[in-house]
């Protein structure tokens, strides 16, 4: 006899059917029904303290594992709290499925208790969303949601489930084949375009591989390395692509753009060909688009056709999956035989690297520079840690000074720039990769937004580590006020002593450590690394006046980058 299930049971079974191991969430009235079958389910539930945290946890999990992260929350305020995390995942193409409770179908539109128009509000913040109106639809819609989240250009998908749908009875059936007549993501690049791309590469004298997060999303790091080595094209890795290619590789010029290395940004400016793979000519990369890479032709490989030609004309557009297209490019390049000698171009860029390295000075008397903390963390961990950043100065320094050698060990909020991302995302990453050291690098401003998720980490036994770079400021905003508002500081100074981060960590069930002086930095990092059964917060009392360089002022030309404070005079 066919099995009769409630909608709630069908929902949880559908998640099991997708291979979901863990969901991040918080129960409430409308989603209550779904939490009952969760008791018997093998799916782990991590109880977040705020729905935004649950969303970022799902994102951190997805970044670290490459799997779909799942968040489950209730209706109304829970759904609105989740929106930030959805938009964040949308901007960074992170595969997430969010399940939200909804008031009963009979109450929708009546301003019922904890009702919000979740479907309408989440529409522009998701790749796709659905409101389920009948329990029978549950298996198929959940299947579709996972398919959409994890294929093509990945992204968040929201499924809104009314209370009466969860309570209704349905005859269980396994989901059928996905039927989405309007959804056919391209995989293979057009062979003619692949040939045209290799033609351009062979004709180019100063090519640059411009690599974005799409390479990591496609799992194409190996192909990228092979292609770079056979063509000897120097590479820039965007904020979202750090780790797609080893920083130790001589072809890697680091991060380009607003706070990129001189060499990465300038190589693009002087380039005659940008071989763009899974990147989107974001304004933080290009600066003023009119002055960006003026001589360069563009090969643009992207799985999302809408990215091609959106911000920059593509001479050779290739729509396809980065891994497949790279394989096609490798095959075509092999067929052509020896590639042009790039020694002169490589000598030029390596020369720039020698002349304009990333630089800072750590006065042994203090104050502590954040770059120094990051370099010490790198030295002591030997780079074997997953780094999760918030948004601001500390994020830029982490991207600049950490040496990333493999994909999925760098997790941050790139497109949306969501302050407070680090702690919940680190929790998600640690859940997904429990054997790795997961070290959040956070600012004091960011920490105060989502620091209460430390409670989640402590109670759920998710031993993340958090370095709080306490410069008693909203540092990046303060930097802009210093540079572009004549130093008139408006609302960017935080208290140097409140909150007490050490006590805060302890109150949340973790260990709190502090370094006030450069000589203490290495010691507290070692202490933090020795503790693996509890959450550890290490506060570093940092220089409140430090600024991130190089810097291209917003909207400026990438030719006019500011290298240091001295450049400002």
């Amino acid at each position, binding site marked *: 006899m066919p099995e009769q299930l409630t909608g709630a049971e069908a929902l949880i079974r559908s998640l099991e059917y997708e291979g979901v191991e863990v969901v991040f969430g918080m129960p409430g009235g409308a989603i209550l029904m779904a939490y009952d079958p969760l008791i018997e389910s093998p799916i782990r539930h991590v109880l977040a303290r705020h729905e935004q945290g649950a969303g970022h946890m799902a994102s951190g999990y997805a970044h670290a594992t490459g799997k779909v992260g799942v968040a489950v929350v209730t209706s109304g305020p829970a759904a609105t709290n989740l929106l930030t995390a959805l938009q964040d995942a949308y901007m960074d193409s992170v595969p997430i499925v969010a399940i939200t409770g909804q008031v009963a179908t009979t109450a929708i539109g009546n301003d019922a208790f904890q009702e919000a128009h979740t479907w*309408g509000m989440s529409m522009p913040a998701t790749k*796709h969303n659905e409101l389920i109106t009948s329990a029978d639809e549950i298996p198929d819609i959940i299947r579709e949601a996972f398919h959409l989240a994890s294929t093509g250009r990945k992204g968040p998908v929201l499924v809104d489930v009314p209370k009466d749908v969860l309570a209704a009875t349905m005859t269980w059936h396994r989901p059928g084949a996905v039927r989405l*007549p*309007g*959804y056919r993501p391209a995989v293979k690049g057009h062979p003619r375009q692949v040939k045209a791309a290799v033609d351009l590469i062979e004709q180019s004298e100063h090519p640059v591989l411009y690599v974005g997060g799409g390479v990591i999303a496609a799992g194409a790091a190996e192909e990228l390395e092979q292609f770079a080595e056979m063509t000897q094209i120097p590479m820039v890795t965007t904020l979202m692509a750090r780790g797609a290619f080893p920083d130790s590789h001589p072809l890697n010029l680091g991060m380009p753009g607003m706070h990129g290395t001189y060499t990465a940004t300038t190589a693009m400016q002087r380039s005659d060909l940008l071989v763009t793979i899974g990147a989107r000519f974001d304004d933080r990369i290009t600066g003023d688009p009119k002055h960006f890479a003026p001589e360069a032709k563009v090969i643009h490989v992207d799985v999302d056709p809408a990215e091609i030609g959106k911000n920059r004309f593509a001479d050779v557009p290739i729509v396809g999956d980065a891994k497949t297209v790279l394989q096609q490019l490798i095959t075509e390049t092999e067929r052509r035989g020896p590639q042009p000698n790039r020694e002169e171009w490589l000598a030029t860029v390596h020369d720039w690297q020698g002349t304009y390295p990333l630089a800072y000075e750590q006065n042994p008397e203090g104050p502590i520079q954040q770059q120094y903390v990051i370099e010490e963390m790198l030295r002591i961990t030997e780079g074997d840690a997953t780094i999760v950043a918030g948004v601001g100065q500390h994020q830029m320094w982490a991207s600049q000074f950490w040496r990333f050698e493999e994909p999925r060990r760098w997790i941050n909020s790139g497109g949306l720039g969501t302050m407070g991302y680090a702690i919940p995302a680190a929790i998600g990453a640690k859940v997904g990769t429990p054997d790795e050291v997961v070290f959040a690098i956070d600012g004091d401003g960011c920490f105060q937004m989502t620091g209460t998720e430390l409670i989640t980490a402590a109670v759920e036994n998710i031993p993340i580590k958090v370095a709080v770079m306490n410069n008693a400021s909203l540092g990046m905003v303060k930097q802009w006020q210093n540079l572009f508002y004549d130093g008139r500081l408006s609302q960017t100074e935080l208290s140097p002593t409140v909150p007490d981060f050490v006590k805060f960590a302890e109150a949340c069930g973790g260990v709190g450590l502090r370094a006030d002086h450069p000589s203490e930095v290495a010691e507290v990092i070692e202490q933090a690394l020795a503790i693996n059964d509890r959450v550890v917060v290490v506060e570093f009392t940092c220089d409140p006046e430090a600024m991130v360089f190089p810097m291209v002022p917003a909207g400026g030309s990438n030719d006019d980058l500011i290298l240091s404070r001295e450049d400002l005079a």
Partner: protein
Amino acid sequence: MKHVIAVIVENKPGVLARVSSMFARRGFNIHSLTVGPTEDDAMSRMTVVVDGPEMEQIIKQLYKLVHTVKVTEFEPGTAIEREIMLVRVNADPKRRGEILDAARVWEARAVDVGVATITFEVTGPPERLADFLQLMNAYGIVSLAKSGRIALPRDQKSAKKQLKTA
């Protein structure tokens, strides 16, 4: 410059909201948008008239919507385009005959006659509606409702013949 595009979408709740929300958030201007059923119950046809030069982006962004199945931009002259309008004009009893004569030439049907106004229904290519409106302006237009444009591509085989008769 106005462009006419046909968008075949899955006939699902909220699909109009998805399309109009995308236009709004991407900053694309809609001149008119109509939506209705097609020969296939599972699909709806939208005819969108848009202003602006970013046609490539508009079409790509439409395709990104999961429920969009097919987008076609009509080159000028390649589609049969129709619109319906109801227009109420001032019609002093003394000028009523003159107005009705003019309307007859345009195949405008008088669908409501009041003490001081006449309401016409006009169907046809958008240009013809525009011309009729211009004519009626002389009498004074009291109110106006337009359906927005609908369009179908011409059957390739009879393209020449239809171009002449449209």
